[in-house]
């Protein structure tokens, strides 16, 4: 974990309100793992005051580069669209606890909705590089808002897509359900939807696979010092006691049993 200046390699509009930021920052790019995030200082002024957290989207370790996929939602992300190639950007990272990919995993599933798919691309990338088979279950309001399609395809993932507008009875996890228990997953990873998180958790209880979810919470420091980013979660697997856990430190990736029934 360190604070360091990166150089913007490019910053390009991807689709709808989603942009892709490529940063050359070897000291972070070479260490950061899927599910971890960086804290971005959007400009060098006092407005906006706080850094903005973004998950790792892709990393090119040899080139010392990493990519963030960001959705324009407010002042900070709007300013990020004006970042210019060749200029410097201040980052803190790698931060948080990323996804756990079991040592001898053979097959995993990622379940993402909207921009929440971003960290799952990083995970699928790592997994498929290790020869793990990745099934992708992607959801969005509308088909053209699905995130990471091209990337997952290039990695050779099996894709299951769902858009609310086209079929709002079904959920993308229905595809997952159909594959179970015939297909055995060593881990299922979800991000971007409380509803999908609950679904994945229920399936995981039924079929006994490990399932993790990446959470978001407003952050000040991003590195465990301010105690501001807590969410209320179950303390232990018995799910009898609740406690506050820091999304930036104990998370952002949690086991679904920690989350479902309290936060999702």
């Amino acid at each position, binding site marked *: *974990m360190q*604070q360091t200046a990166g150089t913007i390699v490019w910053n390009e509009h991807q689709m709808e309100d989603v942009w892709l930021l490529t940063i050359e920052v070897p000291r972070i790019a070479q260490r950061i793992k899927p599910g971890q995030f960086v804290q971005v200082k959007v400009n060098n002024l*006092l407005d*906006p*005051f*706080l850094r903005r957290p973004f998950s790792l989207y892709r990393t090119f370790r040899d080139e010392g580069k990493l990519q963030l996929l960001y959705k324009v939602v407010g002042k900070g992300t709007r300013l990020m669209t004006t970042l210019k190639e060749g200029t410097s950007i201040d980052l803190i990272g790698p931060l948080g606890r990323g996804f756990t990919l079991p040592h001898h995993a053979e097959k995993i599933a990622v379940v993402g909705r909207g921009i929440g798919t971003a960290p799952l691309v990083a995970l699928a990338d790592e997994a498929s590089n290790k020869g793990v088979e990745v099934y992708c279950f992607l959801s969005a309001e509308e088909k053209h808002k699905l995130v990471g399609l091209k990337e997952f395809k290039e990695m050779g993932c099996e894709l299951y897509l769902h858009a609310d507008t086209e079929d709002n009875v079904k959920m993308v996890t229905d595809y997952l359900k159909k594959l179970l228990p015939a297909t055995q997953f060593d881990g299922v990873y979800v991000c971007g939807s409380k509803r999908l998180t609950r679904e994945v958790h229920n399936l995981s209880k039924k079929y006994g696979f490990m399932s993790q979810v990446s959470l978001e919470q*407003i952050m*000040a420091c991003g*590195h465990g*010092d301010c105690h501001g980013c807590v969410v209320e979660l179950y303390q232990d697997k018995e799910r009898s006691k609740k406690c506050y856990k820091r999304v930036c430190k104990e998370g952002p990736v949690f086991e679904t049993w920690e989350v479902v029934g309290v936060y999702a």
Partner: protein
Amino acid sequence: MPNLCVNIAGIKMKNPFTVGSGTFGNDGEFEKFFPIELLGALTPKTIRSYEWPGNPPPRLAEAAAGLLSSVGIPSKSWERFVKEDVPVLKKIPIPVIQSVIGRTEEEYVEIVKKCSDLGVFAGIELNLSCPNLKQGGLSFGSDPQASESLIKKVRKQTKLPLIAKLPPDYSNIVNVAKAVESAGADAIAMINAPRAMAIDYKTRKPVLGNKVGALSGPAIKPIAVYLVWEVYKAVSIPIIGMGGIVDFRDVIEFMSAGARAVAFGTINFIDTQAIPRALKDLENYLIENNIDDVNEIVGCAHC
């Protein structure tokens, strides 16, 4: 090289820099971003004599040039503190000032005695100003009588330097400062973050889980400097100044207003290199301005 050492009631700091309690380090991790020896003293987060969960989320909101927070001082049990934190704090090679809080005089007395008896701290800071608690903290720090009575009781428990951390309370702060001085406090830390709040315009409900929070960061700096200026005129014990410090210019501003030491707070969340950079810049400033001793600038705006 100019002298950077300052003495806060017997605590020898090799430079005037400490951190605002609750804004730096955690879980024994005090060196994530720079060697702890760069600091003149370390002030870890306030502890209680009992376990406490803190306030419900959300605990944070962004404000104009500031942070709105309502953490509420979560605390582990005394036993876990002794087992997990004290061994780490023991190894810190600079003076450690432990901040403590209670809901009642008895709880303050208890935690001060316990901390003092550990024999690892260079001083104890009494948090008389936590803006996010229903009981304790602020109810003492905004009342000259209550704070005087408390300091007197606590004073008997320890020979360590006692630092009273005060809230930014316009009409009372000078009287409270005088009261804690006369009751035996050795120094004053100020300011804690003023109470503040945000309401979501979409839901028209308070943003924070605790409804009310506290404002910190550059937004409050002009208020903090003013209050240090006033308290400096009223007391002769040293002041540890804080509130919105970002760089060496702010350090000079607080010291000129009357602070003998300064604490970096919220900025640590945003710029983990603020302290090392300000330290270097301060040194250069003193050299360029032919100031041999940083103590010379303490209160110099009053002349």
